[in-house]
């Protein structure tokens, strides 16, 4: 059975054809690769292909199917799509709404100011919350005219990455 991998905006079919120690034969979409793949340190792979030496560093994401993969040229977000994931993806299709309605912090930090209150009408460009991390303050602004539905944090509070701070209506 082949797997699908989503790498940034590309989704490819990947299939292991044979494997003997480091030596791997596999296909990515229609391309066959005969490779020497070895893990050097935890998460660090060396791949030799046609004499070329590639290094890929992996960091596991939220689930064991998600990765950030760093290569010489750039860094990619990747996700292995197995049958279960595929099913979930299909089921969620069209029902998902993200962003816009929720203001979350892209990094850990401390809430220094919340110049709005619940029920308030805010206009596009208006600052909703100020978070400080590493001596730098970031202002999070409304992208359209909205109503503040819920404020989930207090001034002085510490927030984690992706923690939702404000909900808009």
């Amino acid at each position, binding site marked *: *059975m082949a*797997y699908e*991998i989503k*790498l*940034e905006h*590309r989704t*490819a079919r*990947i299939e*292991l*054809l*044979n494997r*003997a*120690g480091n*030596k*791997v*034969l*596999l296909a*990515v979409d229609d*391309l066959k*690769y005969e*490779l020497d*793949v070895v*893990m050097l*340190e*935890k*998460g*660090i*792979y060396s*791949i030799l*292909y046609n004499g070329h030496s*590639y290094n*890929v*560093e*992996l*960091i596991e994401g939220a689930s*064991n*199917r998600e*990765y*950030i*993969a*760093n*290569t*010489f*040229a*750039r*860094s*990619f977000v*990747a996700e*292995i799509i197995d049958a279960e994931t595929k099913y979930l993806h299909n089921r969620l299709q069209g029902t998902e709404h993200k962003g816009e309605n929720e203001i979350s912090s*892209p*990094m*850990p*930090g*401390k809430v220094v100011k919340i110049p709005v209150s619940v029920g308030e009408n805010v206009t596009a460009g208006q600052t909703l919350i100020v978070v400080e*991390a*590493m*001596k*730098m303050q970031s202002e999070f602004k409304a992208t359209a005219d909205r109503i503040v539905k819920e404020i989930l944090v207090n001034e002085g509070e*510490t927030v984690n*990455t992706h923690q939702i701070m404000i909900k808009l209506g």
Partner: protein
Amino acid sequence: MIRKVLIANRGEIAIRVMRSCRELGLVTVGVYSEADRKSMHVRYAEEAYFIGPAPSKESYLNIDNIIEAAKKSGADAIHPGYGFLSENAAFSDRCKQEGIIFIGPSAYCIATMGDKIMARQTMTKAGIPVVPGTTEKITDENMALEIAGQIGFPLMIKASAGGGGKGMRLVRDYHDMLPSFRTAKSEAMNAFGNDSVYIEKYIESPHHIEFQILADRQGNVIHLFERECSIQRRHQKVIEETPSPLMTPELRNEMGKFAIAAAKAVNYEGAGTIEFIVSDALEYYFLEMNTRLQVEHPITERVVGVDLVKEQINIANGLPLTFRQEELRQNGHAIQCRIYAEDPDHDFMPQPGVVTHITVPLGLGVRYDGYVYEGYEIPMHYDPLISKLISWGKTRPESIARMRRALYEYKITGVKTNIKFLERIMDIPDFIEGKYNTHFIEKNNDRLFTPKLCGTEYEDMAMIACFIDYLDKIEKVQPRKFTDGLASTWKDFGRKRSVLRL
């Protein structure tokens, strides 16, 4: 003579200072906040004392707690590093009162140079060119308009107590003057508790060039040449180099003399930096003096061959400078890149977090000053500076080539950094030709924020690594029989193909 030094700082600079102390045979004392128990400087120091909660105000800026740690440890000197209390006149004074040697200048020097208006006055009196503008603080809005008229637009409104771009406004025409004046004043009040502002002529296409100086108690003052610091993002330096590509021997000589005069004007003692603003036409003006060690001091150390921290300690011991101006020369070329935990693609947003893996660049001509290690969590409370990478070359092109190589070798996973962004700078023609000013990043925006195009080759390799890792992972959890069958050699490939099912 100093024998035990408390380093009132954290991060890379704490370790850098401790290294020189260790080489001098001095005992090192570290201090740490609640967020820094696992920080490298606590490991590196021979002694370490707790000084309070994570916020700087309650620990690294808490004078009482630091003095207490110094007394408990029996330290006879304090090195403040940069930032935190390094330019705090009250702290310098307090050390003196407590009979502890402050490795830095007197409270008088710090106070005079810390107040931008007072510094402008002092320099003007000493005959040093300052940016045309006011030498008094401006309070009155009518006065502000009048002076703006005299100086002409564009102009800058700056906070007297300023720094880091706060309370600073560029005004391009008359009708923006009053609103800018008001916001500058209120920003200054918020940031520094002091709404003094002054007005300066705005220098178009400015270069930031600074001179390193050393002054002993005997009144000897020398300069250790210039550093070019024009590559900045958000008014913070990103890349520095020495010699400056802009410099001529005559200009260096002239500016060096003024730098010495500036230090003498305040009876300076220790290591300091005179910052100049230089126009494309090579007109230069005193901008400010930093009365401490600078983040970018290593490039001077490399090219001039002097350990600046050791010189600071030597001076603090009351000893005269060990060399004269004529003995110093610039050997080759050095560049420093500042590595920040930040996301250049999202407005350089800081990125605290856990460092999962790190590969440090090494070898000929590379110096690395850092403090993070694998498994270390970079706290959100302090500066995003992870490390400084310094390359040296016989020539400027060699130094650039070496920095490019070092950046290629440098790998950090777990937190986002500006490494790739710095790599891109090394390839920008303006940088390679040494033709740049403080507008460099703005000007080269297109090339700096577009990730390198790469073939599907790298995409495929990334996918393959994820795939193999994933297979091995699920194999470990639910081992199926197929691995046995695969433990054969490569030769069997033809025969075995497609026998396997996953």
